[in-house]
């Protein structure tokens, strides 16, 4: 259409007859385009898998030997329906907090009773417990902390996550888009977990410790949420596998 023949639109005047059909088509195209966009982008979200809080299991109360380092865990000596005796389970506080906030390190090696809700993704389970004695009842009784079994040095590939979001506190709870949230959990000393691309000793999920066996080092935060390759020592504590991650022996892989 020649420019001089184009109907002339002025905002405060009625729409020229020659533009009405064109603008109707454009309007309907815009609405249809937005509607189609909503459907297309909505259905193209990746499936994050089944994970979340197991409120359907109800409150779980178990007794066992408590270990606070590198991150709180319980070697269960008296289990419940969904947390059997003999299992070692990672423990977290409410939200993005470690349960040791306001609690003493003297709990290490003691028999304690803990009570909370399971967060679960497949074989990965974590118990979120309440604050105070409602979540953790200490006793004066000493327990026997399982001796760590060294499984040697391994070359592993996978992703560093915060164990709680990964287990389903948030879903999806891993990846780059979730990195800042994962870091915030790790700053709050939520147990970090490595998701291996291949099972090692039959396990896919590993609690991460620092190279010295204590908490994960802050340098490791730079690798959270990314696909990494690392050389790491693995040890078994109870029936939980722990990786001693050294950021100097870790690299991002494409």
């Amino acid at each position, binding site marked *: 259409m020649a420019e001089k023949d184009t109907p002339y639109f002025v905002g405060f*005047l009625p729409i020229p007859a020659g533009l009405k059909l064109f603008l109707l088509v454009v309007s309907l195209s815009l609405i249809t385009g937005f509607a189609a966009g*909503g459907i297309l982008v909505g259905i*193209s979200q990746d499936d994050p898998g089944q994970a979340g809080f197991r409120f359907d299991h109800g409150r779980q109360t178990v007794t066992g030997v408590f270990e606070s380092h590198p991150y709180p865990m319980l070697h269960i000596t008296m289990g419940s329906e969904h947390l059997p005796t003999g299992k070692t389970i990672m423990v977290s506080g409410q939200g993005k907090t470690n349960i040791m906030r306001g609690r003493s390190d003297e709990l290490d090696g003691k028999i304690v009773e803990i009570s909370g809700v399971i967060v679960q993704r497949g074989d990965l389970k974590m118990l979120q417990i309440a604050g105070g004695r409602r979540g953790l009842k200490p006793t004066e009784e000493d327990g026997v902390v399982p001796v760590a079994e060294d499984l040697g040095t391994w070359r592993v590939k996978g992703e560093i996550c915060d164990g709680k979001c990964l287990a389903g506190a948030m879903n999806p709870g891993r990846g780059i888009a979730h990195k*800042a949230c994962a870091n*915030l959990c790790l*700053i*709050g000393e939520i147990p970090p977990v490595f998701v291996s691309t291949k099972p090692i000793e039959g396990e896919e999920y590993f609690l991460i410790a620092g190279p010295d066996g204590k908490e994960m080092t802050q340098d490791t935060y730079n690798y959270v949420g*990314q696909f990494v390759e690392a050389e790491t020592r693995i040890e078994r504590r109870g029936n939980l596998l722990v990786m001693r991650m050294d950021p100097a022996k870790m690299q991002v892989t494409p």
Partner: protein
Amino acid sequence: MSVKYIPVQWNPNKWKYNAVMLIGVFAYLWLFIEWTPAIMSNDGRINGQIHNARAFGSCAFLMLTVILCIGPLARLDKRFLPLLYNRRHFGVMTLFVAITHAGYIINWYFSFSASNKYEALLFANTSYGQLSGFPFEVFGIFAVLCLALLAATSHDFWMKFLTPRIWKRIHYLVYFAYISVVAHVGLGILQDQQDKIFIVVFIGGALTVAALHILAALQERRSGDPDALSSGEWVAICHASELREGYAKVARLSGEERVAVFLQDGKISAISNACAHQNGPLGEGRILDCLVTCPWHGFQYDVRSGRSPAPFTEKVPTYQVKLAGDQVLVNANANPPGTFVEPVPLPSGA
């Protein structure tokens, strides 16, 4: 046009414009939030907050993409000019959709810790030295701040207060906001995405914006306004026979200064090509009811004086005109805005 500042100068076309855009946005959000979970195989597995954040975030991206397509589309085909008319309202809508996205993110990913959630947004990821895992949230923050500044200064009061030149420069921030959004998505969710549909929609949208701007720039270079031929202070614009009743010929005088030479009632007048409102191209406008009418927002001027009709107060510079045979000459020294210039009658037979 208005002689005083009121929040919104509503007219039927603005209502229709906003209705179409709102229906589009509501359709996007409703279908994404309410409808797609039912047809996805992973119904209910994605947290509601994350699902909603994605709906609002992707909608804001699409809205900004549409906003940035309108300008070049209107340059390529004048029939798209009506979409330009009320684009500011769509921009403000985009801000609210983007803020809602940010709200879901902050109240989900950055809450539940011992730290303030707004502080956590800034310190949780500080891996600025790497591309993969870069704190892409900062790009989102920058984009929202840009959109907020644009929305806050979108009213004509600010244009008058800041002057159209400065206002326009501030509003070029929309391009930085868009680039920021592209970086926000590209370094964020796109890194995790396995399904290809979103990747195609996102890259397709960004490439469409870039391609339309390149096409519009090429067209402007091919058929842009010619340089006026200078002979001292008088410059030749065109032949009188090229003028058409009610329309203008535009020529570049120097730098960005352009003159629009109109023919009205068989007489020639010349005014600045830049509308006093938003620097819209008056020479691409038409004379309606004896007044030059800007194609962007309908601001009107008397072609002889460059003044808006009373009670409006907008003024644009005028130019002296003379004929040398069939040649239309304009004095390159513009008169002060609103200066009356006697029109020059078209020679008989032209």
